[in-house]
């Protein structure tokens, strides 16, 4: 059984000089709209006759077959001395092409989406790292300030010690007076208290010592009228321990994990 040759129509026309794609566009329009059959009822195949050349009018040949005569095998003929092969795409083939195009498009879209999502995640992670690094840098700067202060305090203490400041602050005098008030003999009348050097001197009416405590060494050193002066050894100097206080981390709006950034060196 052989396939019956389809009924087909051939037409030639010219398209003015222009860019090749412009000429093809014009040829398709001409073939579709100036055909012998309504475009919905026909399959159209357009072929250029001869090569494109700039500034030269192009000749095209168009073959028409009825749609109801599918499937249509290719038609080979000679037009203006050129051997031309007209091929007609069936609706099924067109659907397959369309489906292939859709699948390819889907894959391309998926790939673009993957890359886009990864980029978004990467940029977000980098921004979070930047924020975290900034926060840590602020903390590091505070450490620097704390270190500077600690150094300055240590130098100051060294200078003060060399200037003989140990045991000669208001706190030391207050401490001695508190001790004297706490341990004073109830009947003792203290006329004068002096600090000059390493000892405290207490002038008391009568010959009895000013305190009943044996916490500190006490010795009479002189007599003025009815009063006696006692030398009391001073307590150890008042000291304050000054250490380094870790600076507080800066408070930032959330969104940053409270850990160091995971950065590969």
């Amino acid at each position, binding site marked *: 059984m052989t396939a019956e040759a389809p009924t087909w129509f051939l037409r030639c026309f010219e398209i003015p000089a222009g860019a090749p794609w412009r000429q093809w566009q014009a040829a398709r329009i001409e073939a579709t709209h100036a055909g012998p059959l309504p475009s919905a009822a026909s399959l159209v195949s357009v072929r250029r006759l001869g090569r494109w050349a700039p500034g030269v009018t192009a000749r095209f040949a168009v073959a028409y077959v009825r749609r109801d005569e599918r499937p249509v095998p290719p038609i080979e003929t000679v037009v203006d001395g050129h051997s031309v092969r007209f091929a007609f795409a069936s609706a099924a083939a067109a659907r397959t092409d369309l*489906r*292939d195009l859709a*699948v*390819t498009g889907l*894959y391309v879209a*998926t*790939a673009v989406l*993957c*890359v886009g999502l*990864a*980029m978004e*995640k*990467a940029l977000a*992670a*980098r921004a979070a*790292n*930047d924020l975290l*690094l900034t926060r*840590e*840098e602020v903390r*590091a700067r505070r*450490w620097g300030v704390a*270190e500077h202060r600690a150094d300055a*305090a*240590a130098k*100051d*203490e060294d*200078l*003060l010690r*060399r*200037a003989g400041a140990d045991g*000669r*602050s*208001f*706190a*030391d*005098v*207050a401490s001695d*007076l*508190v001790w004297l*008030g706490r341990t004073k003999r109830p009947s003792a009348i203290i*006329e*004068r*208290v002096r*600090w*000059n050097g390493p000892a405290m001197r207490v002038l008391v009416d009568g010959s009895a010592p000013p305190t009943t405590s044996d916490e500190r060494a006490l010795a009479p050193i002189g007599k003025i009228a009815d009063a006696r002066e006692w030398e009391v050894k001073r307590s150890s*100097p*008042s*000291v*304050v*321990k*000054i*250490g*380094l206080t*870790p600076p507080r981390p800066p408070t930032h709006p959330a969104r940053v994990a409270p850990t*160091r*950034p995971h*950065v*590969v*060196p």
Partner: protein
Amino acid sequence: MKLKARALAGLGGAAASAALAMALLLILVARAPHQSARAADLRTSDDAAARLLQRPAVAASGVVLCQSGLQTGAAEVRQALQRTSSDAGLVLRAVEFAPLSSDLPRGMSGAQMRLVVNGGDKALAQFLRSASQARLPIVLDAVEIKRLGGGSVQAEFSGRLLCRRAA
């Protein structure tokens, strides 16, 4: 069959895209050079901080050095003593500063100070507590507290105002 082949090819393409995306992620995040450099700086800073924390505490003498220069320091101390004695209920008889006769260690400057206050013994104790807490830049060389009668005492403080000399 053709469609299956295309599907397989598409899956391969998607896997390749995901691999490319991961590579981009690594390039953009993990290998960001400026962030690596900043992180390295922070590690150095952390080491310094750890060393600082291990540093032993300094025993301070209860006196601080004034940092603002001798004249400003004297004015500040005068003001602090006036306020402290007034708050305690003492009468400030004298607060005087004079050039220092003795030498000081290098890096320091100082002035002689004399302070005389009158008042009750409880007021004097309050004054001493407040002056202790204020940690004034004053080293007391001599103090004399004597009874005046009527429950009143007079305290005379001689000392040195000590300041850090600007380098």
